[in-house]
């Protein structure tokens, strides 16, 4: 009996010792003590935290964000090195899940070398994580979280370079009604903060214009079968289906609605603006579908071609996803702020509490030319770049819509 008992106790001890060893190793993950063994010698180690889903349903968009941020950091690193700073990226997976996201946020701010965060694709992750960044006094620039609530929490350290749902949803509604001539619409959202917010804004603006909403429905992310829903929509026969959500479900709605005999197009927000949408729906089904996305099309921007070249050189064989350029711009916003603070207070001060505060203030007054257009922030921390471009699927690819 006592042997069994002591064995059990031994097992607990062994577990705890192992746990303690591993966590103590993590405890050592502190900028201050291992700053000395940098390859750069006297350089101050500075990191930008990047977090988005690298695994899970929207991993394609999430890794795109990491790619964009990596490009910006690689581009800026040589210049910062001259200022005495070695800049690197700390990329952490948030799995598009609020709990994992908040853990990731804590992991990043626990590293004192992290002076800025480019993070979170999903608004549902960004909102709880922003409280962590606020408590730690680290700036957060979101490349893709578009739910209005994010910047309305009264946090001075929270910014975003993407247009909020209010702007995009009402733009889409006006465009659909005035320019495209649709008068009735069936609205679907995917029960996420992003999709719900966007669809609600669209519906409100479309009704205000005098359009008719024939139905509003909620679907669940990961669902595959929307045949019942689209059959029902077809019987009401609206001009258009508006989908608030991401590309996978949107593409299935597009495919199944056309197979069920619905003749109108599907329209959605920036979550649809990726080649994946067309691949899943099938080019024939997606033909004529609309999406709105912020900023000008990549090809029409002075730095657009440059970005594309740079991207193709660094990530051969990969495609540019919807938020890559925003992630690049968001990272550049932080980089510019680091430069300003380093010039002002000296490179050593960048990672101090005062330095991080100075970075927040520097980001607030950002005024730079990014890939997505001119980047500056209003008093809430939202981008002042409110340009929204409508896109349409033509011959199996998204192209800017022109009449």
């Amino acid at each position, binding site marked *: 009996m006592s042997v069994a008992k002591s064995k059990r106790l031994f097992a607990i001890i062994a577990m705890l010792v192992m746990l303690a060893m591993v966590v103590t190793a993590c405890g050592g993950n502190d900028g201050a003590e291992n700053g000395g063994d940098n390859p750069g010698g006297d350089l101050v180690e500075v990191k930008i935290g990047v977090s988005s889903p690298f*695994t*899970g*349903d929207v*991993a*394609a968009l999430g*890794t795109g964000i990491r790619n964009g941020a990596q490009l910006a950091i690689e581009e800026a690193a040589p210049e910062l090195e001259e200022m005495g700073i070695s800049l690197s990226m700390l990329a952490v997976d948030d799995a598009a899940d609020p709990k994992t996201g908040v853990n990731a946020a804590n992991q990043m701010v626990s590293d004192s070398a992290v002076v800025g965060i480019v993070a979170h694709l999903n608004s549902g992750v960004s909102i709880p994580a922003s409280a962590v960044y606020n408590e730690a006094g680290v700036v957060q620039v979101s490349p893709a979280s578009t739910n209005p609530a994010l910047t309305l929490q009264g946090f001075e350290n929270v910014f975003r370079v993407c247009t909020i749902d209010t702007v995009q949803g009402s733009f889409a509604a006006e465009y659909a009604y005035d320019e495209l001539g649709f008068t009735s619409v069936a609205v*679907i959202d995917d*029960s996420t903060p992003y999709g719900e917010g966007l669809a609600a804004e669209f519906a409100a603006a479309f009704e205000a214009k005098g359009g008719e909403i024939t139905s509003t*429905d*909620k*679907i*669940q992310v*990961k*669902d*595959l*079968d929307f*045949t*019942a*829903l689209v*059959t*029902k929509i*077809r*019987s009401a026969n609206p001009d258009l289906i508006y989908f608030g959500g991401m590309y*996978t479900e949107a*593409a*299935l709605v597009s*495919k*199944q609605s056309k*197979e*069920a*005999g619905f003749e109108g197009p599907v329209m959605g927000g920036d979550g649809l603006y990726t080649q*994946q949408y067309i*691949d*899943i*729906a*099938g080019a024939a089904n997606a033909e004529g579908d609309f999406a709105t996305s912020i900023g000008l099309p990549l090809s029409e921007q002075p730095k657009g071609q440059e970005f594309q070249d740079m991207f193709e050189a660094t990530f051969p064989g990969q495609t540019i996803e919807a938020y890559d350029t925003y992630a690049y711009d968001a990272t550049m916003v932080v980089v510019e702020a680091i430069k300003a603070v380093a010039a002002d207070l000296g490179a050593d001060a960048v990672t101090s509490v005062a330095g991080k505060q100075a970075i927040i203030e520097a980001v607030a007054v950002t005024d730079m030319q990014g890939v997505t257009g001119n980047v500056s922030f209003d008093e809430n921390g939202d981008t002042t770049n409110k340009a929204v471009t409508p896109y349409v699927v033509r011959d199996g690819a998204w192209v800017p819509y022109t009449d």
Partner: protein
Amino acid sequence: MSVELGIIAQQFVNGLTLGGMYALLALGYTLVYGILLMINFAHAEMFMFGAYVGLFTLQGLSRIEFFTSSGPALLLLYLLTFLIAMVATGILGVIIERFAYRPLRHAPRLAPLISAIGVSLFLQNAALLWISSRSLPFPVLFEVRTFRIGGASISSMQILIITVTILLMLVLDTFISRTRLGKSMRATSQDRETAGLMGIDINRVIALTFFIGPALGGAAGIFSGMYYGNIKYNMGFIPGIKAFTAAVVGGIGNLRGAMLGGFLIGLLESLAAAYISTGYKDVIAFVILIIVLIFKPGGLLGESVAEKV
């Protein structure tokens, strides 16, 4: 009015197509449960695995010009694809049984469940990391026609899925009720120990069960790929839960119950999405489950069996 009726007819076909896939998947849950009394949580991953093998086989074989040259050759291509994917998925099922479940045959009831959850996590992440985190488009090499009858639009794909599903079920039903091997499976499910004493090789029967169930699940996975046009590493999760629900509604351990349950859940889900609420359609499936179990605790076609966790 006839348009209204047509829409209802179309909803029925939608539901039957969905239900056919649930039913095929539910058969795997019910077969394993009937023999080992365990919930094979990893069965949902068979759906996913079958779809991936199907996709790669289809992509590989369609490079050979012969297969796309004529109608009969195309049919052969699809038959081969199904055969290869079903056999591969069946083998995976047998391997999983051998390494994850067999060591636990005498363990407490919940241990195999946890092991199954582990297998499920492993397979899902393996597909995510080693294949792709994205949805992969699933090509359809033949022309899908849409038939309009009254107000209804029914695609040839839906007809194909429903027909083949029913065909596979008939084959399985005949196999279980008419052949010697089927008989030994039934015997094992009734009383494993006694069946063993009567000279039935229990391990072989269990391995066979773990071949047939996943093979059918794999076929359902290919159907899902063909019907929805894309496949993904986590595609098995939701159909898995629904199919398990279907197996229980029909009476778990009962093959015909699983088929009935699958079609019933698919049909009710479609009708609920159309006429009640899309947001609550899954709630309706579970409410049906609860009502059925309260009034018929053994499921529609099952008997109530005493057991414990």
